[in-house]
């Protein structure tokens, strides 16, 4: 029997999944690696630890589940988080840690660029909003603030390019991840000279651009041997987590959007052209030349509810966080829709779409004497989902949305899915396989193998398990509160900046 392997280099862990050729997951394992925050706004990981963890997990999965069942591995396809930057020297040795997507150190560089006329030109060329997390801003930061590392750098890679180079030989980057760097012209599929110029680099400093189906070469002999894989295993460079979750979610035809909420979240649509938003709020990532994934990301997804649970959940030491979370959701459901007028702005981590303001901060608004603990729980969940809705609303200015698919651990909690249906006033389906990212990587491999003729056909094969129908009377209530939410998120702009600066000052004092 034959199988394909997908490797997802995620934010906190690598997940390796094996699929048979019918698309059933036949085995999966994960391995976590830490994130280092050596300074506020910094977020780094050890590239060697990511590599070793990936190798270890892959080996364990093969030895424990795949080889004993006599599966023959025919391909390995990669997925990765976007926006990572890893500098290497001319020997291929990392110069320090990999800067992860969540790193915000390039705030100033991004702000300056966004305020200049160049910002708009870059957005039009690359399809990527100017923000601190984009490699464009990060490399600019390195140029200005770490000239020694910058000078020694032979190439700036993403973590996936590094891992693939270690396993094979070539320095490659797929169009999907490249389209999230802010450095690639999304219309011509080549590095955008002006953006490179701004960052202070030339295209030799970047990996070679390749399509998502590209194979960078054979697995190195030593790894073939230690993993027990044959010489014919095809390495497929694959795509980004965002694009693959879209493919694996089976959302393809016009009028469909997908809502993904894990720690962070996003609302995405797929189309055959780039969406140019005059306010630069919408990202555009390229899966193939005919498939553009457009949407908006939020920093504040499930991680915000997790924060709430840690602070205000059952602190009895014998319960774990999942259990505590379920209890709180249960309690929240006793409260009427709209939390009797208690609103929550979930901007604990600053915000990307749609307000694109790293200084935004969280807030509870409208508290009155009758509000109880449970109101706060419900308001917190509603606030996270209002933010998702406001991204969807922005997208609807450009694209017709008739129905949604939800995936990710937070969005697929049934209570949350129903709330999404009510807030959007549209039917929401949930995929059968909650891991749509791995599913997407499988569909990509399967299309490469010829099992599906096109990616469109592959996407259509995804079975959606259940649909949540909107209740219009609930929608009406939510919309009354949402309009206040929306106005607050804009009105507080100046205060966000003042409070963020004060907080930064305090951090500096206590660190200094």
């Amino acid at each position, binding site marked *: 029997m034959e199988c394909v392997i997908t490797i997802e280099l995620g934010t906190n*862990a690598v997940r390796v999944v094996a699929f048979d050729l019918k698309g059933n997951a036949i085995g999966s*394992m*994960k*391995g*976590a*690696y*830490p994130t280092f925050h050596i300074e506020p706004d910094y977020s780094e990981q*050890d590239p*060697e*630890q990511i*590599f*070793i*963890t990936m*190798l*270890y*997990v892959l*080996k364990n999965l093969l030895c424990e589940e795949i080889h004993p069942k006599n599966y023959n591995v025919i391909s390995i396809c990669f997925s990765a988080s976007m926006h990572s930057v890893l500098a290497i020297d*001319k*020997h*291929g*040795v990392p110069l320090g840690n990999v800067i992860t997507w969540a790193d915000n150190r390039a705030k100033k560089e991004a702000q300056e660029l966004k305020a200049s006329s160049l910002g708009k030109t870059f957005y039009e060329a690359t399809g990527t909003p100017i923000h601190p997390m984009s490699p464009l801003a990060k490399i600019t930061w390195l140029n200005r603030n770490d000239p020694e590392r910058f000078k020694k750098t*032979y190439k700036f890679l993403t973590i996936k390019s590094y891992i693939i*180079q270690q396993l094979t*030989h*070539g*320095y490659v980057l797929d169009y999907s991840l490249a389209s999230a760097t802010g450095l690639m012209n999304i219309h011509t599929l080549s590095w955008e000279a002006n953006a490179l110029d701004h960052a202070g680099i030339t295209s030799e400093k970047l990996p070679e651009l390749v399509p998502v189906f590209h194979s960078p070469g054979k697995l190195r002999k*030593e*790894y073939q*041997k*230690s*993993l027990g894989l044959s010489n014919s295993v095809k390495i497929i460079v694959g795509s980004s987590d965002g694009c693959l979750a879209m493919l694996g979610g089976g959302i393809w035809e016009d009028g469909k959007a997908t809502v993904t909420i894990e720690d962070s979240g996003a609302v995405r649509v797929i189309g055959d052209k780039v969406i140019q938003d005059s306010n630069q709020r919408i990202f555009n990532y390229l899966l193939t030349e005919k498939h553009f994934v457009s949407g908006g990301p939020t920093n504040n997804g499930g991680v915000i509810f997790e924060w709430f649970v*840690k602070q205000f*959940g059952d*602190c009895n*030491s*014998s*319960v*774990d*966080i999942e259990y*505590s979370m379920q209890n709180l959701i249960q309690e929240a459901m006793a409260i009427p829709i709209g939390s009797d007028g208690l609103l929550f702005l979930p901007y604990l981590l600053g915000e990307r779409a749609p307000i694109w303001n790293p200084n935004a901060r969280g807030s509870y608004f409208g508290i009155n004497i009758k509000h109880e603990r449970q109101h706060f729980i419900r308001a917190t969940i509603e606030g996270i989902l209002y933010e998702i809705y406001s991204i969807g609303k922005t997208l609807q200015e450009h694209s017709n949305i008739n129905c949604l698919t939800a995936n990710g651990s937070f969005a697929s909690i049934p209570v949350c899915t129903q709330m999404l249906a009510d807030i959007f006033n549209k039917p929401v389906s949930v995929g059968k396989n909650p891991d749509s990212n791995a599913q997407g990587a499988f569909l990509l491999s399967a299309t490469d193998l010829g099992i599906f003729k096109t990616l469109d056909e592959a996407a259509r094969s995804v079975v959606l398990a259940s649909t949540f129908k909107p209740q219009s009377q609930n929608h009406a209530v939510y919309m009354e509160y949402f309009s206040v939410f929306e106005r607050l998120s804009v009105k507080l702009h100046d205060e966000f900046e003042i409070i963020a600066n004060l907080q930064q000052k305090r951090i500096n004092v206590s660190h200094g």
Partner: protein
Amino acid sequence: MNQFTLQQGSSRELELFPHIKEFALRKNNTIQLDSFTPILSETLRCYYIVDGKFEWVINGQHLVLYPGDMALVLPGHEIGGSKGYLDIGTLFWLHLEVEKIENTSGMMLGKWSKLSEMERLTIIKILLLNNMSVLKMKEAIELLHEMRAEIMNQELGYITRVNYFIDSLFIIIARRLTRQGDSRLDFPRTFMKLEQTLRQRLAHPWSVEEMAALFGLGTTAFTEKVKNYTGFSPLNYLINIRISEAIKLLKRRDVNFTDIALETGFYSSQHFSTTFKKLTGYTPGQFRKQNASNPT
């Protein structure tokens, strides 16, 4: 409450307790300038506030202490009044000598303690790991009073009793510290601390028991939680860190294999080589050659 000050060398009461450098109860009625200027502590110090309000700087941290607070000062850390004097109020203190472990920077409670060697080591490690200088510990006052009575009265079995009270004090402190971070509800944060400790002392021959003790957990519960969170058993997770650090050193090309092996916690270059090959398919030598000659 009667004040007292016992000092090793001058107080006969401490002759049979060489590990106790100072034990005192002091009622401070007046402010004297420069009465508490910053000094580097050579001993492990515990201060318990009985009444009053004290403003101190311990290891660079500004602290305000109230009755019921226990302040901890580790050997090598600095302590002093924020304004250079001792504030008005009443306090106990105990200065304890800890045993240095030969050839390392490690410390442990001395052999006077009835705790096992592993526990004596772990308690100090927990103190170092938490970097917490103050704890609410109202229950400590009874221990301190009983300890004082035993030392002063010298009745049958008093040596055992005094040492028992010191052990009890540190057991309470260590348990409190491991619970303070609420390791169960916020496992990731606590795990991050462990990860840091492992990296700082990679050459140390870590055992699961030792790692679990830092969490204040038993080995079974600890192993299960780590497995759940990371996908690896604690020892396999440690191998990940060891091999990734070894890879960095191999790529630097100027460190020999034996040094790499020992620095990253393998028993020998042979043990390192076997583990490395098993995981990566390369011997360390092949790996180094590959990454030197093939930059592509």
